[in-house]
């Protein structure tokens, strides 16, 4: 348990969570049929990156620049989400569905 505790508060702990989030995010992006689901996956990956930055900021550099990057990631994620949802809403309006696979008129 102690071991686990020390791990969790170490760099490795943060990186591990980040890595798991990253992998899950990739998985989510690849498997979700729902367009919004894909967006969820992307958010997971971005969070993974954010965790990394914050972790490195503390454990590697001791400076706040990592945190600032993480902040910008959040902002950009928000902007992206806004645009993404607008696009997806358009998509619904035109196709009456949210299935990502339905977006395949343009092919080959």
């Amino acid at each position, binding site marked *: 348990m102690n071991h686990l*505790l*020390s791990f*969790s*508060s170490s*760099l*490795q*702990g*943060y*990186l591990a*969570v980040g*890595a*798991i*989030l*990253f*992998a*899950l*995010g*990739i*998985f*989510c992006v*690849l*498997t979700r*049929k729902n367009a*919004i*689901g894909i*967006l*969820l*996956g992307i*958010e*997971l990956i971005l*969070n993974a990156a*954010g*965790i990394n930055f*914050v*972790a490195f*900021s*503390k*454990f*590697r550099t*001791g400076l*706040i620049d990592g*945190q*600032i990057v*993480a902040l910008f990631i*959040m*902002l*950009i*994620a*928000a*902007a*992206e*989400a806004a*645009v993404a*949802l*607008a696009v*997806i*809403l358009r998509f*619904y309006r035109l196709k*009456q*569905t949210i299935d990502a696979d339905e977006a395949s008129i343009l092919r080959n």
Partner: protein
Amino acid sequence: MDLVLLLAEIFTVASAVIVAFHPNILYAAVFLLFAFCGVAVMFLFAGADFLAGAQIIIYVGGVTILILFAIMLTQWLYKIKLVDIRNKMLLPGVLAIGIGFFLYRALHQMALSLPKLTPEALDKFTATPKTALMGQALLGSYLLPFEAITILLLGALVGAVWLARPE
């Protein structure tokens, strides 16, 4: 204290797992919210107090709510089932595990090879409040990105509005 962190991490991971696997998109979105909260706790423990707050405000309060709204709007409005029929999962699963494997290897190697800061320095970093520092940095050396993001947000807003607005 570390226990809280550990729990937060476990909570985050667990929520993320549900996000990735839960067939109902609404549940997934809600668990994403939980995951974000967990991450916020993790940020707190990493000395990013301002960021933790921002995480809650932007992600939990903004992005996730936006997503939930979108889900509600579209799905209830159009009466589409919330259950997300999954695509084939084997290959993506293998790929995700593959990525994870390489990540593990790489990060493990790196974490061991990095120079270690002293625990005191770490504690000191954690203990320092960051809000003022961040503010200074954003208006100081990070002025450029800060200004750039305004243009970005402006553009994104205009774009999102343009797209979402009914003609």
